[in-house]
């Protein structure tokens, strides 16, 4: 009897010993604050709640960075972190906030459009909770998130998710997917309210062009592409041609399907006056046939199983032993954004946005590394640091 009690006590203590580090990891991941060094063109940082009161004070009351030139011009909105499990989609706008020199017009940037989704990883997916980008001054840690809002913030999911306002039936969990809930609604779920708040930002600030940054698995047909609302097809096509000939990588164009609802490239274009574009870069980390789902795969994009899938013709993008490193994925996004801004400004001179420099192109990011463009928070006054 005493032996049994001692044995049970030991096992219970071991169980608690396992519970504590898991709990601490979840707690830290949810509350980890990432420093952002405000670049020379950042005029102010507001909140999404300033555009829609219903999101104020919630976990998705995200920062909105305004980069403004001296001369008036057009307005762009760059959305990062719509899907926080696609890290190049957050790192590329991060480099813009920290480095861009805007000469004319305004660029609004949201680094974490769905903050709730950035505080959780995919249950059962064995995702790392964070990743580190090496820099000349050390390293910077970032949260690794998920595609869907944290169930702690929005729960339960319905049996059937009916998209608003189309009433199209979508997968039940996509009621927590920001890129299936646009244009959102003011009295909806947290994720729907977030989509509505972003659309309110676009309407109230008179945004001309919205660029939503993503990454995709190589087994997904929409990859290495600019997905464009019909209002932005010419803009995307011209940018794609210039990039494919001059920038060192190829990117295609796809028209946003009218029958697929809830996505930013469709709903923002339909429900606001803005041109809406979505960029996809290749991320082998997301492929179903991947091997170990760790930080190395996240950053190098190297995976022998995904390569093997490619040899069997199962992929929509090439991959070899060199993989798809994070620098190339970030560089694709920054270079594409620069080209879209250039093409837009040439075709709409009254609503031009002019960058005087600062934003690295594809070759610069690949050559110098993403960390080269991240600034040491210790090197600037506290007034120039904001946390995500």
């Amino acid at each position: 009897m005493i032996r049994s009690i001692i044995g049970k006590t030991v096992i219970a203590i071991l169980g608690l010993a396992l519970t504590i580090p898991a709990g601490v990891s979840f707690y830290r991941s949810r509350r980890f604050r990432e420093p952002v060094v405000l670049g020379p063109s950042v005029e102010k940082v507001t909140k999404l709640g300033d555009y829609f009161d219903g999101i104020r004070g919630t976990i998705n009351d995200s920062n909105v960075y305004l980069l403004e030139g001296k001369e008036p011009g057009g307005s762009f909105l760059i959305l990062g972190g719509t899907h926080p499990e696609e890290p190049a989609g957050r790192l590329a706008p991060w480099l813009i906030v920290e480095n861009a020199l805007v000469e004319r017009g305004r660029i609004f940037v949201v680094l974490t459009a769905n903050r709730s989704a950035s505080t959780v990883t995919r249950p059962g997916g064995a995702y790392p909770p964070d990743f580190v980008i090496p820099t000349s001054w050390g390293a910077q840690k970032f949260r690794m998130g998920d595609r869907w809002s944290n169930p702690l913030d929005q729960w339960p999911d319905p049996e059937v998710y009916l998209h608003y306002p189309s009433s199209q039936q979508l997968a039940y969990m996509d009621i927590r997917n920001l890129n299936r809930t646009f244009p959102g609604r003011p009295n909806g779920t947290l994720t729907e309210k977030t989509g509505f708040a972003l659309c309110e930002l676009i309407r109230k600030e008179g945004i001309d062009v919205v660029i939503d940054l993503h990454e995709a698995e190589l087994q997904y047909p929409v990859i290495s592409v600019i997905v464009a609302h019909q209002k932005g097809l010419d803009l995307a096509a011209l940018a794609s041609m210039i990039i494919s000939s001059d920038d060192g990588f190829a990117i295609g164009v796809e028209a946003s399907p009218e029958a697929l609802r809830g996505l930013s490239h469709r709903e923002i274009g339909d429900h606001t006056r803005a041109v809406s574009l979505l960029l996809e870069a290749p991320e082998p980390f997301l492929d179903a046939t991947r091997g170990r789902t760790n930080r190395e795969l996240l950053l190098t994009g190297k995976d022998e199983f995904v390569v093997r899938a490619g040899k069997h013709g199962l992929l929509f993008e090439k991959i070899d032993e060199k993989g798809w490193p994070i620098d190339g994925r970030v560089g694709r996004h920054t270079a594409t954004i620069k080209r879209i801004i250039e093409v837009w400004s040439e075709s709409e001179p009254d609503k031009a946005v002019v960058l005087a420099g600062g934003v690295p192109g594809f070759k610069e990011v690949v050559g110098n590394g993403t960390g080269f463009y991240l600034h040491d928070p210790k090197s600037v006054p506290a007034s120039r640091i904001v946390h995500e």
Partner: protein
Amino acid sequence: MIVTALYYLLTAYIAGLLVWSFVRRKRRQDEILTAIVLIPFLLRLLRLK
């Protein structure tokens, strides 16, 4: 809110059953298994995810 409250009540109930099962188990292997199964229920009750 009501569904969430019911969810936590259900989680607490199952966690309670697991604790009771842990106490009643005779085989060491079953005790270890029950302790491991209990972990996510405890974390859920603590709202850690």
